[in-house]
């Protein structure tokens, strides 16, 4: 898994597919439990499949259940393409990356 660039931020570099889903899930879940909120940075994702998509959906649902904000950052074409096919862009909002503060109402939606 990629380097974590500080508490509450997970930067995913490389594939987010069935090949890597196991370790990615562990990373996402442990960070989500350990911090008050989580930013998942998707800029470096090179491939995304159903397993990856499913993992993002799980993370979003878990975060909501724990009452912690979760944001997906980095609108990269690989990610937006998959979201367009699954027509999930509205459900899994991906924001341009940047140091913008977490807006609680958005994150806990």
């Amino acid at each position: 898994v990629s380097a974590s660039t500080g508490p509450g931020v997970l930067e995913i570099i490389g594939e987010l597919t069935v090949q890597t889903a196991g370790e990615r899930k562990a990373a996402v879940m442990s960070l989500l439990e350990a911090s008050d909120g989580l930013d998942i940075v998707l800029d470096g994702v090179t491939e995304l499949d159903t397993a990856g998509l499913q993992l993002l959906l799980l993370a979003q649902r878990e975060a909501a259940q724990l009452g912690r904000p979760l944001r997906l950052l980095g609108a990269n074409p690989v990610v937006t393409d998959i979201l367009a096919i699954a027509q999930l862009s509205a459900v899994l909002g991906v924001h341009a990356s940047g140091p913008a503060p977490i807006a609680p109402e958005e994150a806990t939606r």
Partner: protein
Amino acid sequence: MSFEDEMRDALATFLVEGRELLEDMERALLGLEIEEDPTETVNAVFRAAHTMKGSSGLFGLDHMVRFTHVVESVLDRLRTGEIGVTSDLIGALLPCRDHLGVLMDSIADGRLEETPEQAERATGLLATLNPYLQGNPEPAVTAAGSGPARTGSDRASDARPASGDRAGPPGRRNLHLSLRFGPECLRDGMDPLSFIRYLSTLGEVVDVTTVTELIPDAAQMDPECCYLAFEVTLSSEAPIAAIEGVFEFVREDGAIRILDPDSSSMDDYVDLIESFGELSGRIEEILLRTGAIQVDALESARDARQGRAAAGAGASATTAVGAVGRQAGPPQLESPTAAAAGEPRAAAETKVREARSIRIDAPRLDRLIDVVGELVIAGASAGLMAAHNRDEALTVALGELMRLVEEVRDSALQLRMVPIGSTFSRFQRVVRDVSADLGKDVVLVISGGDTEVDKALVEQIGDPLMHLVRNSMDHGIESAPLRAERGKSARGTLRLNAFHDSGSIVIEVSDDGGGIDSERVLAKAIERGLVEPGASLSEQEVNGLVFEPGFSTADAVSDLSGRGVGMDVVKRNVTALRGTIDVESRFGEGCTMRIRLPLTLAIIDGFLVAVGGAAFVVPLDRVIECVELPADSHLRGCMDLRGEVLPFIRLRSLFAITGERPRRENVVVVEYAGMKIGLVVDTLMGEFQTVIKPLGVLFGHVNGIGGSTILGNGDVALIIDVPMLVRHHGDRNAANQLVTTTKE
């Protein structure tokens, strides 16, 4: 990797696997007649056809789907026992298999549509299957090749009888696709999103709703399992069958439902909604939102269903559910784990097959063997140094190391070895077809099928063998009346046999036919000027003449011998593989063609010798013994070996090596194909494991050298090509003999 690349790769895999399936199918079909209990074989043929149909549907190869579908229907009837195994049925199915092979070949050439000739051929072939189909032939039979026919399973068309009557292709309409893939689909490399993306080639994907509610809690969620379901609205003109075809591969594991507003009944929609159990509300909402169904129609269908149930007339509804369920997978799916538990057999079988073998690029294997070869050399070199330094502990350790290296070497070489049986069994079909053509009754007996040989050799020996087999059947085995006259059974026997013999593999093609008429062969040879009249040749030599170019003693030229491939081509092919061929014939009783080929020549155990300053390696499996050269034999070309005359060759003069001859010389006695000769060398240096490096093209014409190798100390040693030397020696003797005979 882009989607197009993925599809291209997948198509290549499809072709490879498809050809294997066709081979399986042929083997199984040929086995059907002789097996006592053909149930398992019938199933194997059916599965092969079914998988072919499924995978060709995945690539939109409609003509293949159409064709295979009919074949599959016949096989299905065979499987259920509605029809029995007959020779005629197999005779009808085999050409269908061949046609599929032709289709695969043209797909490999990039033609994804069928040509008019192929369509015509398909129609003709399917007509021969007609008698084996149900009393009322399916539309697919008559419509094949003339436009899109229904290709869905016949059960599906039974469930929707109205659709069969519809003329022409359906118009553009909004289909509802409910795609719930099997939980294992991701692990199996099937990405649902790729399928959805692919759907856009069949029409317009109007709406996709991803159902995420089936994902379990984080703790139970297996990240490699697929929990997502997709409800897709597709606007398309494509027939249902084409769309079903896309999902052929995954339908067994998952629940794929395709609902067509033209032909699906309201009940089908209700079934779909109910199949989601707790989530039925969600699905209902999706269906209503996308306009797939209307509220009032849904209500009335529900009312009707309740009414039927209340009236105790639920039988028909149950049947309908059953039909859809069989077609589209398990209708009830309470939790993802429930589906995982009931993994269908087909998937399990695929896995078993995958576990049994893996595919490797040949160059990778060659690279491995090359490196192992270097390892052997490096190990030998280290061993030499340890011995030189008299370091015993190191010598012992290296001994163990070398033992392991040898084991690695053997396993690496083993990777290239395949049993020759699969090549042999291809000839069952050839013998069957050729005997039908010739009107002869011939049975093929195979033995030694598990003899292993280098894969590259197996691939190249097929053509020569094919010719020998055809030749034996055409010219060797007599017609039934003649056999009766000679007191033989009416049924001719052809044998294929293989065995290992001193570093070679021997392949025999024998028949119990007429054998070679040596007198006629000799007469013909004299007539052609191949042999001087009056020359005395042994029977062996006379029979060997049949391998000369342009030699044929056949009285009648049949369509088999008119192919322009003579026995000389067989001999040339075998020689190109560094092999030899000879013939053993008993006139009136039969004939055996014997091909002798090297097993593999990547690495050999060699015997290192030195002449002057040069080192040579003699393949150890050719070496019989080593003796000292008797002092009195300097002037002769032969010596006395325990009362036997042993001709010898001086490597010093053969390779024009200069330098003083030592006082004592040694003879390495080698044997090839029953002939012994001695090689005179200066010193014997002992056994040596060696990797053959081929000589460059420049040295391709050098006789007597089979390759080179690098010694532990970095020197180059040449590898002696014993067969070549022995043959060369024999030829020279024969030439001498001929000359002397003609002089007389």
